[in-house]
Each structure stands twice: as structure tokens, then as C-alpha cells.
């Protein structure tokens, strides 16, 4: 099996038939992780335990008793999910050295199905950011920076040193996970999505990024940012694989009382051929200021694609769109202020040496443990929650949240099945350019197209669509009705098949992937 294969279609079959063993797969991935270390996608690589899991998986295949499609499949997990016995840092000094005593529910589910956990991926500190540039372990580099496609389009520079500085960001905050999947070091990765943190890096790294409906997948063990918006995110190389992951992760968890009690039935995606019964909505307000003309053109082209295939494509309006990011900003900082209060140095994590009083110890611990971004959000959140501000800001934002949610309800009630929007305003920026603006400004700009789905809890997915003029990935976003992931993914899969997004051409991957490099096929495996 090639590292590029789809799970359901090829890799799983290859494992079953013995054409490749779980240990071979694991070793290949680990080797690739080593040779792509410069991407800085991984914070911790759990080599020993991964190989052990791979061996156990191999035993099961030998006995003809694999646990399922995910048995033996190498996966990576964002470093804000608790993983027993493996360091969980959230890319922060506050949790450096913290070894979780338990597995997050989603991690446990993956392990129970035989998945091989390769390691923990890099992110913005505490998942706050849209670049994966603000963690204590340094920024993550977008694998496409090193692709032939990007290099061909770059203006040739005289110094090789300049080429080093040319690299582009992954987007964030789940940049490590996106980079890991994009560079073939794993078959799937878990991210988290609070304002777009899975879809944004998915768009920039040319992978599928799914944000499930709020309440579908357990948040138990996901270190919380905004309890009313956080969801675990799924990053894969094709839509079918996202459906596989969703199937193994979704469902009620008694340990997370915000998961719905409904019975979830995993599904296989049909191969949609007839889209004539589909109604695609194009929200006009998503033509946001700053949207690149390239992406605007791609969005338009995609709409035409659906129209020409017989679908009904209508312009719709989500009138409160421009207040969405403001509302998000208030609610997010308020919940963050509350959630970050648990980090006081007493039970876990960094602890300052100050001894005069509990309060001074707490203050010093938090001073030493959190970066500017985190501290900034905590202070803003506390401001909005002050007695004199509570009604004016926090409750006001909650009211606006309802208006935003109602906008979507109205549109879906009018007969629209799926909304089609851009995911990001432009392709990935070079790192040096990205850090010119501060984190809050960047997040406010970059989250604009993605965070409404978090405010409303609706499912949304980024599908890699085409390469930009600079040779970098651009994705488009589909937003669906609540708990209608099957419909959402079916449409996404149809679209993926139409656009035939190119495979990234990386030197490192070539070396490690002995086998299927003959055809430069697209990422959709039909």
C-alpha cells in the first residue's frame, strides 16, 4: 500500500490481504516523520508505543481478526487531547511535562479500534490562533512550501538562505495535524475546531477538514477552550476517510453531557451521480472584504459546476454575518477566561516557586506559564464578564448568537440543503508576512468565514479544490444542516471527485513511498 491510499478503498484491503503489515506501515510513517522534522508538525513522537500497537495489530491480522477498518492505521492527535502516558502540552509552558493519566474519549475510541497513535501534533498555544505559529515549540511549516508545485511558482532567489525563509504557514490552530496528514506521515489526524481551527489549516494544507455538528463527538479529554463551541475535528486526505473516522468517533458519551443521546449509525458514502435534487445556497455576505479574487473566481466556478450538473444554485442571505466574528470574539474570550482558571499550578502543570500566598503563587504561575495571546484573551474575557459589562457584552453577544443561528435556520428552511462558501480569504501566507500582524487581528481576519459554523453548531467541511497562482492549496467550505453529516459528506465527496485536486509532490515522500508513484492521480480514489 502506498502512503497516499485511501483507507477504505485501498489501505485497509492491503492490510487484510497481507500486502503490507501494520509494522511496515508504522515504520514507514515514523521514518517519514523523521525526515520531515523541519516541518515541526509533531511535538511528541510516541515511537515505542506506536510500534507496540502496530505489532499487536499485526497479530490480529495474522489471526484474521482485525478490529475494523482502522486497525493498524497510523494516526496523529493534536496536542490538546489528553493521551494517557504521553505528554500533553497544548504547546504551552503551562503544561510542559504534563503526562495525562487518561485518554480523551476520542483517543480511546481510536485505540480501541486498533489505530496506531504515532504522536501529538503542534498547534498554537492552547489552540488560540489561526497560524499554528504561536506555540512554545515554534511554528509549523506548511509541507506545500517544499512541494514542487510551490517551488516552480516561486520567484527564483539568488541566495539559498532566502529560500529557507520563503516557507508558508499551515494556518491554525490545528496546523500540526494538517501538516502531518498533508505530508503523508499519518493517514488521519485529530484536530479541534472552535472558530475554524480544523478547516482553516485543512484549506491551507490541501486536506479534508471536517467540523462535525456540536454534540455529535465527545469533548471529554479535549482541553476546553470554548465549551459551547469546541468540537474535535477530523483531518484526512479524502472525504471517504473522513466518513470512516466520523463513524468511529461519533456517538453519545456519558462522560460528556453535551453529547446528544441519539443513536448514531456509521455510514458509507454513496457515489452520488445525480445532483438535480440538490439545492446549494451561496451566502452573499461571504464575499467578505479581503477575499482574494482568485478564491472568488474558484467559488464562482464551483457554483457553476453544481449548476451545470443540474443542481439548483441560489444566492441566499445571512444578514448578521458581519457581526458573527465580533460575537465570537466576546463569547470566546469570556469562556476562555473561565476555562483557563483551572491552571493554577496546584494539581498539574507548571507551578511557580512563589510561596507567600496562594494568590501570589497562582498569579506568578500564570504569568510564567501563559503566552501573550492566552493572557490577552483571559483579560478581555474577564473585562466582558465584569458586573458592569455582563449585560452589555456577554448577554448581548448571546442574543446576537441567536440572531446568527436564526439566519441559518431560515435559509435551511427555505429549501437549501447545503451552503457553499470559501474557507479562507486567500492561500497560505509566508510566515514572515503572517507575523507582521498580531494574533488577535489575524484570528479576526482569518476566522471570518469559518466561525459561524461554530456559533451555530452546524457541521462544515473543507474540501481541497485547486492550486492558487502561487502553487498553494485553496479549499472551499460546505456547511450542512445539524446532524446531517451523511448528506454533507456525500455532496463533499461528489465535489471532490469533480475537482480532482492534485497530489502534493514532495521529495521526502518519494523516497519513502516505494511502490505506487507511477500515476500522478488525484487525491480522490474512485
Amino acid at each position, binding site marked *: 500500500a502506498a502512503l497516499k491510499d485511501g483507507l477504505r478503498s485501498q489501505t485497509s484491503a492491503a492490510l487484510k490481504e497481507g500486502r503490507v503489515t501494520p509494522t511496515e506501515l508504522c515504520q514507514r510513517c515514523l521514518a517519514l516523520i523523521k525526515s520531515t522534522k523541519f516541518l515541526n508538525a509533531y511535538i511528541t513522537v510516541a515511537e515505542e508505543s506506536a510500534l507496540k500497537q502496530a505489532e499487536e495489530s499485526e497479530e490480529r491480522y495474522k489471526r484474521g481478526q482485525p478490529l475494523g477498518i482502522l486497525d493498524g492505521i497510523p494516526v496523529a492527535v493534536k496536542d490538546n487531547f489528553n493521551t494517557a502516558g504521553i505528554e500533553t502540552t497544548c504547546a504551552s509552558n503551562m503544561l510542559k511535562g504534563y503526562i495525562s493519566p487518561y485518554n480523551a474519549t476520542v483517543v480511546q475510541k481510536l485505540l480501541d479500534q486498533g489505530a496506531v497513535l504515532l504522536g501529538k501534533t503542534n498547534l498554537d498555544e492552547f489552540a488560540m490562533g489561526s497560524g499554528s505559529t504561536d506555540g512554545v515549540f515554534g511554528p509549523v511549516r506548511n509541507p506545500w512550501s517544499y512541494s514542487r508545485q510551490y517551488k516552480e511558482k516561486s520567484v527564483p532567489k539568488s541566495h539559498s538562505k532566502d529560500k529557507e525563509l520563503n516557507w508558508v504557514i499551515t494556518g491554525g490552530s490545528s496546523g500540526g495535524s494538517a501538516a502531518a496528514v498533508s505530508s503523508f506521515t499519518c493517514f488521519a489526524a485529530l484536530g479541534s475546531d472552535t472558530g475554524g481551527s480544523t478547516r482553516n489549516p485543512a484549506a491551507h494544507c490541501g486536506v479534508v477538514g471536517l467540523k462535525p455538528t456540536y454534540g455529535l463527538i465527545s469533548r471529554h479529554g479535549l482541553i476546553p477552550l470554548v465549551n459551547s463551541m469546541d468540537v474535535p475535528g477530523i483531518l484526512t486526505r479524502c472525504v471517504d476517510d473522513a466518513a470512516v473516522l466520523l463513524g468511529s468517533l461519533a456517538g453519545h458519551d456519558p462522560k460528556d453531557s453535551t453529547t446528544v443521546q441519539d443513536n448514531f449509525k456509521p455510514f458509507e458514502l454513496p457515489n452520488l451521480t445525480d445532483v438535480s435534487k440538490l439545492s446549494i445556497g451561496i451566502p452573499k455576505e461571504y464575499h467578505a472584504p479581503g477575499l482574494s479574487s482568485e478564491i472568488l473566481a474558484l467559488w464562482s466556478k464551483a457554483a457553476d459546476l453544481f449548476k451545470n450538473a443540474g443542481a439548483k444554485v441560489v444566492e441566499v442571505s445571512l444578514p448578521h454575518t458581519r457581526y458573527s466574528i*465580533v460575537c465570537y*470574539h466576546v463569547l470566546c474570550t469570556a469562556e476562555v477566561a473561565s476555562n483557563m482558571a483551572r491552571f*493554577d499550578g*496546584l*494539581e498539574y502543570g507548571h507551578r511557580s516557586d512563589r510561596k507567600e500566598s496562594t*494568590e501570589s503563587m497562582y498569579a506568578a504561575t500564570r504569568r510564567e506559564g501563559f503566552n*501573550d495571546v492566552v493572557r490577552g484573551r483571559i483579560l478581555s474575557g474577564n*473585562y466582558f464578564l465584569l458586573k458592569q459589562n455582563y449585560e452589555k457584552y456577554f448577554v*448581548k453577544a448571546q*442574543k446576537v448568537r441567536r440572531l446568527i443561528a436564526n439566519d441559518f435556520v431560515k435559509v435551511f428552511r427555505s429549501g437549501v440543503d447545503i451552503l457553499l462558501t470559501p474557507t479562507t480569504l486567500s492561500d497560505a501566507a509566508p510566515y514572515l508576512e503572517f507575523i507582521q500582524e498580531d494574533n488577535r487581528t489575524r484570528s479576526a481576519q482569518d476566522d471570518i468565514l469559518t466561525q459561524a459554523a461554530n456559533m451555530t453548531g452546524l457541521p462544515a467541511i473543507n474540501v481541497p479544490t485547486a492550486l492558487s497562482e502561487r502553487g498553494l492549496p485553496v479549499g472551499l467550505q460546505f456547511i450542512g444542516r445539524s446532524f446531517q453529516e451523511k448528506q454533507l459528506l456525500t455532496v463533499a465527496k461528489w465535489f471532490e471527485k469533480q475537482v480532482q485536486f492534485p497530489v502534493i509532490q514532495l521529495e521526502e515522500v518519494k523516497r519513502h513511498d516505494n511502490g505506487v508513484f507511477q500515476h500522478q492521480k488525484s487525491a480522490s480514489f474512485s
Partner: protein
Amino acid sequence: QKVSVEVLDHLEHLALVDFRDSEGVERLQKAIQFADQLHEVNTDGVEPMDSVLEDRWCLYLREDDVTEGNCIKELLENAREKVEEYFVAPPGNIPLPKLEERDTFLQGS
């Protein structure tokens, strides 16, 4: 309007996090300015939304049965200072020093 030093001091007390420098204070000012846009929206008669799942009533109570626990050892592993089965904290009920006596950037304001 600018946020007064009293409020900034109050925030540092509540959050137990410091502004660090003028940039930190600027950051808050910009955040408030940004949030002020909310007041352009007419929300008369609109109920605040706590959860997107409000229609499903999924926040339930379960039976008060002990289903897991007995993991004192694991829980204490990650604490730096402990004695027997206790987490050890410095003396409590001592408020943070007042602004004038505290080592904070706000002192200069």
C-alpha cells in the same frame, strides 16, 4: 474611552494574570473597541442563547452512583507539591498586594 487604571488593576486581581506592558493594555483597548460593534445590532425581544443544543435538552442528570475513581496515585502524579494525599498550597486568605506595592506594569500608569 480608555479603561481606567482601577479597572485594569481589578482585572489583574480577578484574572490573576498581568498585562505585562503597554502592549497588553493596548490589546485590551482594541478588543473592547472591536466588541463595541455589537451595539449596532438590534436585539430587542431576543433571548440570549446559551447552547446550540437548547432544543434537545441534552444536559441531563445521571444517577448518583460511583462508577469510577480510586485513582489517587495517578492524580497526585502531576502535582509538584504534595503531602500524603493532599495537594499543598501556600497560605490562603492573603490578598494580592495593592497596586502601589505590587510588581506590576500598571504601577507606572
